[in-house]
C-alpha cells in the first residue's frame, strides 16, 4: 500500500491486501446520500427555465444550449451522479449484494425527507406504504440475486 496517507483515518489499513480498506456497507450508505443530493439538484435544475428548441430552426439551439450550460444545479446533479456510480461500482466489487442492495434503498428515505424540506412536498399513508413496499422489494431482489 504505497498510498496509505490517502486512506481515511477511520479506516483500518488492511493486513490482507485482498481485503478492501473500507467497509463497503458504509460506502453504500454514503452513496445513498450522494444519490439523494443528486436527485434534489436535478429537481432544482429542472425548475430552471429553458427556452424552447425548434428542430427546423438551428438558431434556436444557441439560446437553449447556453441556458442549459448555465443550469448549474442540473450540471452539478449529473456530475454527482457520475461520481456516485463509480463509488457504487467500487462498493459492489467487494460487498455482498444481499446487504448492499437493501442498504441502497435508503436513498428513497433521504429523497423523501429532502423533498419534504426543500420542495414542501408532503407525505401521506399511501406514499409511506409505497416507499416501504419498494424498499422491501429491493431488499428481496438483493437477497435473490446473491443466491
Amino acid at each position: 500500500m504505497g498510498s496509505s496517507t490517502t486512506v481515511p483515518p477511520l479506516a483500518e489499513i488492511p493486513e490482507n491486501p485482498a481485503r478492501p480498506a473500507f467497509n463497503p456497507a458504509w460506502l453504500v450508505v454514503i452513496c445513498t446520500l450522494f444519490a439523494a443530493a443528486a436527485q434534489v439538484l436535478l429537481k432544482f435544475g429542472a425548475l430552471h427555465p429553458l427556452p424552447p428548441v425548434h428542430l427546423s430552426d438551428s438558431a434556436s439551439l444557441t439560446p437553449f444550449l447556453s441556458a442549459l450550460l448555465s443550469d448549474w444545479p442540473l450540471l452539478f446533479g449529473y456530475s454527482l451522479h457520475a461520481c456516485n456510480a463509480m463509488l457504487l461500482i467500487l462498493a459492489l466489487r467487494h460487498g455482498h449484494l444481499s446487504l448492499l442492495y437493501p442498504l441502497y434503498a435508503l436513498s428513497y428515505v433521504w429523497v423523501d425527507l429532502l423533498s419534504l424540506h426543500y420542495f414542501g412536498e408532503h407525505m401521506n399513508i399511501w406514499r409511506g406504504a409505497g416507499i416501504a413496499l419498494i424498499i422491501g422489494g429491493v431488499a428481496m431482489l438483493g437477497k435473490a440475486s446473491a443466491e
Partner: protein
Amino acid sequence: MSQTPLSSIILVLVASFIGSFGAVFLKLGAAHLSRGIRGLFNWQLIAGIGLFLGSSVPFIIALKHGELSVLYPMVSLSYVWAMLWSRMLFGEPITKQKVGALVLILGGILCIGVGGR
C-alpha cells in the same frame, strides 16, 4: 388537489424503460473490461452510458411538473424491466423470490401513484 400530473408519471415510466436497456448494454460492455484501459472504449459500454443519459431527459422533464418524492421511487420500475431483459437475453432465471420482489416493487409504485394524485 393533484400534485403530480399523470403525464409526469408516464414520462418516468418511459425513462425507467430506456434506463433498463442502459443496464443491459453496461453488462455487455463490462465483458470487455478485462482487456484493460482500451476495453473502456467499446461501443456497448458507450451505448449503455448514452442510454442512461438519454433516460434522464424524460425524467428531468417529468420533474419540472411533478413531485420528486413521487417520481424518484417510480424509477424502481427499471428493476422489473431489468429482470425481464436478464431472463430473455442472459438466461438468468426468475426465481420465486424475484417474483416476490417484483410484486412488492409494483405494489409500491402503485401505492405511491395513488398517494401522489
